[in-house]
């Protein structure tokens, strides 16, 4: 993770476009300016960043299911629960699965676990559109390479 740049995902562990599920890994940095304010003397991951982590995990699943032709944007957080603190240095395993694929939108459910224990979960709604410009597409290509997006998951 590189929190200041909203790089929440370190690598994709598994991406199954048949079952429409994804699992990723994210290592919470030991130090970050985020923790200087949240909170002094008691650093924990802000809940909004846990939601963002689940959104990005879901987003990569949707990117794969849409064959890297469209960009999902978070539209609604239907329910999010912060079930336990996430501390600097911990490694998150984040799972997401598709709940519904609508026309121009999709709904996912995501879970964050640390050492097998559930720390957070949410139901997320995304709207998705064709990539709005080449810059964003290029950025997503670069991130895909960094996190090990399996190109073979795409339909040729």
């Amino acid at each position, binding site marked *: 993770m590189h929190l200041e740049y909203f790089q929440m995902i370190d690598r994709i562990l598994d991406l199954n476009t048949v079952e429409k599920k994804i699992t990723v890994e994210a290592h919470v940095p030991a130090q970050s300016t985020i923790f200087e304010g949240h909170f002094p003397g008691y650093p924990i991951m802000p809940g909004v960043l846990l939601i963002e982590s689940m959104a990005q995990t879901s987003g990569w699943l949707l990117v794969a299911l849409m064959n890297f032709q469209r960009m999902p944007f978070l*539209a609604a957080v239907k329910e999010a629960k912060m079930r336990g603190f996430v501390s600097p240095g911990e490694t998150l395993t984040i799972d997401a699965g598709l709940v*519904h694929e*609508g*026309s*121009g*939108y999709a709904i996912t459910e995501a879970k964050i676990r640390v050492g097998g224990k559930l720390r957070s979960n949410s139901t997320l709604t995304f709207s998705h559109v064709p990539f709005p410009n080449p810059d964003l597409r290029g950025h997503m290509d670069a991130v895909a390479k960094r996190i090990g997006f399996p190109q073979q998951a795409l339909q040729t």
Partner: protein
Amino acid sequence: MSSTFDQVATIIAETCDIPRDTITPDSHAIDDLGIDSLDFLDIAFAIDKAFGIKLPLEKWTQEVNDGKATTEQYFVLKNLCARIDELVAAKGASA
């Protein structure tokens, strides 16, 4: 159609917290009921699930944006329900 309308009106009432008795077949989801695009996603999801269909929201939006259709054709509830009935029938025919 009446059964479809009842279901859709109930979905809208529950999803958007709109009094059920203010929702009529002639209500325009956007202009009369004040439903915005994000709330309509929730309604679309509930309709998709309830009727086992996929409302073609993108196609409808594109047609409206291109001037090929009016919002009344898709978002006045009696028209929306007619579209739902067509989609359900088409699904049954292809099953």
